[in-house]
């Protein structure tokens, strides 16, 4: 098994664990580990800037947000009885999807031979501040919306 495939498997495993874990804290940490795996994939694919952003924002900032949020949740709320069947079915669906992908990956890759040659490399400053600043504005809006949504839900919990 080469490193690339190993990292992708690791990413998948941590992603699955973050959804299936009973403990919120474990789920948050698994998500961070999945982000770290993705960062390594990005480094391996020669996309260091994307890797740095993934590591700092997703593995770093988001994890801090999750862990601090989990820490304010009352302990007993983590152990409310729930039907776990839907979570246990997840690996099954993942396996079906994986098999479907295995079957269709090759014809899909053949159909998607790039029609245009790869563009000349542009430095990250130009990309971020001139070409993609609209996306940065969108990302800031995501943070604001996320913070407001958390505020709205936790106020609900406190009022309940």
């Amino acid at each position, binding site marked *: 098994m080469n490193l690339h495939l190993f990292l992708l498997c690791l990413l998948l495993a941590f992603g699955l664990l973050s959804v299936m874990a009973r403990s919120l804290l474990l789920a948050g940490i698994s998500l961070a580990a999945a982000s770290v795996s993705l960062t390594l994939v990005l480094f391996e694919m020669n996309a260091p800037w994307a890797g740095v952003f993934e590591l700092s924002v997703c593995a770093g900032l988001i994890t801090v947000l999750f862990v601090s949020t989990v820490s304010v949740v009352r302990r007993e709320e983590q152990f409310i009885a729930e039907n776990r069947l839907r979570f246990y079915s997840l690996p099954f669906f993942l396996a079906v999807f994986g098999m479907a992908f295995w079957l269709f990956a090759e014809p*899909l890759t053949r*159909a*998607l*031979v*790039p*029609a*245009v*040659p*790869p*563009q000349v490399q*542009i430095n990250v400053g130009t990309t971020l501040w*001139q*070409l*993609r*600043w*609209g*996306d940065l*504005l*969108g*990302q*800031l*809006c*995501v943070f*604001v*919306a*996320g913070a*407001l*949504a958390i*505020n*709205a*839900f936790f*106020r*609900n919990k406190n*009022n*309940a």
Partner: protein
Amino acid sequence: MVTSLPYFAFIAVPALAALACPFAARIKPRYADILANTALAVGLLTALSFIPEIAKPLTLQAWNMGTGLSVFNNDVFSLLMLITVYMVALCTAFYSIFHEMPDGRRGVWNALILVCAAAMCGVAAARDFFTLYVFVEVTAVASYALIAFEDRRESTEGALKYFFLTAPASTFIVLGVALLMLYTGGTSFGHLAQAMSSSGAGDSAVAIILGVMACGFMVKAGLVPFHGWTPDAYQSAPAPVSALLSGVVTKAAGVYALIRIALALRVIYPAHAANAVGQALMFFGALSIVIGALGAVYQRDFKRMLAFSSISQVGYIVLAAGAGTPLALAGALFHLFNHATFKTALFLNSAAVEKQTGTTDMRKLGGLEARMPWTALTSNIAILSTAGIPPLSGFWSKLIIIVALWKAGLQSYAAIAIFASVLTLAYFILMQSRVFFGKTPEHLAKVSEARAGMLLPPILLAAVMIAIGFYFPLLFSNLVEPAAKAFL
């Protein structure tokens, strides 16, 4: 070409106002209302001030793939979306002043409406599918929080359905964007058009890219058969949020991108009815028209019936976009704006009925016309406009769509559109008779008209419907025709 629109301000002003809202509410809860309404009113007036530019010769700058500082779109379609977003968001924020909620929560409520508006402006501004996706996701997060805001069991259920059914749609969109990037080396609308003109839309790679992205956007638009989340989300959301969702969120998050794809198709197919993607759009549009209308007939809840009606009306927009002639596309844009006006008015009226009577179950309602005359009047106007009765605005947009379909040789689709319009009138008459006409039940004997402030947005929207209807010849030569020429 339209003068460069100040998109940064259109997005940043409501976003900054959203940040300030919770702090303003701490000083005095009403300050959050004032701040939100002022920011949105200024945005609407600024967007309206650009209307004279539409009469000038236009080009679709979206096709330019220059790598300059302009990362945003600059065409008539974007301007129309901006006006629609600000208009509906302002109506929602204004109505919210009278919506009951704990004072401590007004800051976050208004902030969420403002972030949602900012995100939808971002969608309208995007000239690139990835930027569009980022803002669509912001819209989704804010909408999810707004649907679940009231912490009722139904609200949580509606919000979760919205989240779980639209999350896979996001995956489809990202996958489509990634494939577009892989195939063309870029993610802009121009790159899609370039890929199609160089290879032909019959090319399997382009068909895969378009199919994957269109699936995602159809879920977000709530088109049949991807409409499962729509009725529950609309019914269970707080009343003003239903107006926002139906009036503009589904259009910004789904319909807008579908029309952009349809515009891209025009690059190689002047009338792309023969194209597979165009045909798929028309098929799902027509299916939504019929299923939405039939579904509405059987509903017993006021808001749920309006939700099915929205599915049907969005179908008209997508059907016209799929036909793809300049007239059909102009009709799609015009109907998009009109639908925002009449559906916002109807959802706000349903909110007034719910507030005054405590229910939206039509079996428990009746005879409200005498007790809520203004609500009944504005509902009547909005209903007649939705059904396409002359001379209201909805009549003209449906007429343009039907004429465009007929001229494109799509008589069967035109017949479906006409038939569904009759069905629309039928279920709305049914609704009016159950809610506003007939004998007043005893338990509603003491019901009174909603407060003047709550009536103001529906009255203004009804005035817009009437004004557009009467001044249509003027609007047609100055707005619709130039918009249609822009698509040539």
